[in-house]
């Protein structure tokens, strides 16, 4: 799951996947902006079926948090 998320996140942010680490704070990545945030939300929806309120999304900080979000939602 982590590998799949990192690959999808790299594509959404147009970054090299090797620069994305589980403990990385994704909003601090240089390519993260109000525009690329849409790509991240779109990716979560289309790749992982994640429907999330912005309040919850805004509370997520790291790439590992995103992985946990997907794992938890898919369990429930």
């Amino acid at each position, binding site marked *: 799951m982590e590998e799949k998320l990192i690959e999808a996140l790299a594509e959404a942010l147009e970054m090299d996947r090797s620069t994305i680490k589980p403990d990385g704070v994704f909003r601090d990545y240089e390519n993260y902006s*109000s525009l690329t*945030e*849409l790509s991240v939300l*779109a990716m979560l*929806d289309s790749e992982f079926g994640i*429907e999330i*309120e*912005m309040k919850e999304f805004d509370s997520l900080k790291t790439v590992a948090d995103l992985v946990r979000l997907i794992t938890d939602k898919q369990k429930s």
Partner: protein
Amino acid sequence: MSLLSFNNVGISGLAAAVPQKIINNYKHDLYFNKDDIQEVIDKIGVRERRFADDNTCSSDLCFAAAEKLINEMNIDRNEIDLLLFISQTPDYRMPATSVLLQNRLQLSTSTITFDISLGCSAFLYGLSVAYSMLTAGGIRKALVLDGETRSKVYSQKDRKTAFLFGDGGVAALIERGEQYSTSWFSLNSDGSRESLIKIPAGGYRKMSSCETVTEKVVDEHGNIRSEEQGYMNGADVFNFVIREVPRDFDRLIEFAGVERNSIDYFIFHQANSYINGFLARKLRLPEERIPTTIHKYGNTSSVSIPLTIVSELSGKLNGQKRILLSGFGVGLTWGTAIIHLNDCFIGDIVEV
């Protein structure tokens, strides 16, 4: 559940008007440099849009569209018993702009007129009101006028909205007749999200003052606007739309009991090309049945659905057609409609 259906009522004609002034977005570098705006424009897909001049209101655009429609369809003005004006950029706080248009269009003083103040979903709401009142009987023809001058609402110094919005006006004639079969509507609202798209001041909750018209830097990116200009939290809106619009789409298809394949065209509110592209992919709709005008008129709020029909479906609505409309935006409000058309007249777009 707010699901409606109507029989024997339909749109017999549509016309539209846009301002003459074309804004080329890639050259719209009044406050931002071209490199910075390129990324924004590439994502939202708005290459051009139209801006009304200081003396032109939404009502003027609607008036031009209505004159075109009435004259080219040879409509007897005395048969128009209902005039609805849909806009959030009216001429005045009072009186209602629809009443001014009744006089300008030389309609009878027995005409029912009122305004509907909603945003991007409003054409669907307006149609549902016209369909309802026509179905009640006693009304021969209804004129739905839908106009916006969103260029006057948003700051050109706020990059989140400066490149998105444009102006336009449409006129739709609604009539009863056995040539029209069933139309279906689903209409929704969620006021808990009222702060996502908003003009915070200038109404009666926070009245106009020197402070409310003063421009201020509003974020860490240096975007500038006053409290009497609109703002939009794009990510929140996007996140809501990609979840709720497909859900409503499926709900109405199920309620109507129609096959997707039987729908000739899917006309979405022209929000921006990124949202619209995502919705089309998520709903797995064929690209050739999704007309778009976001590249040339931008986001014209409630006008975008009928303006897209007039601009892109002229000559394609002969005979019987079934089209699906999907509107979503400020409020938030959103809706889906499947309407039946039969030889719908489409006028050429008028430039004002």
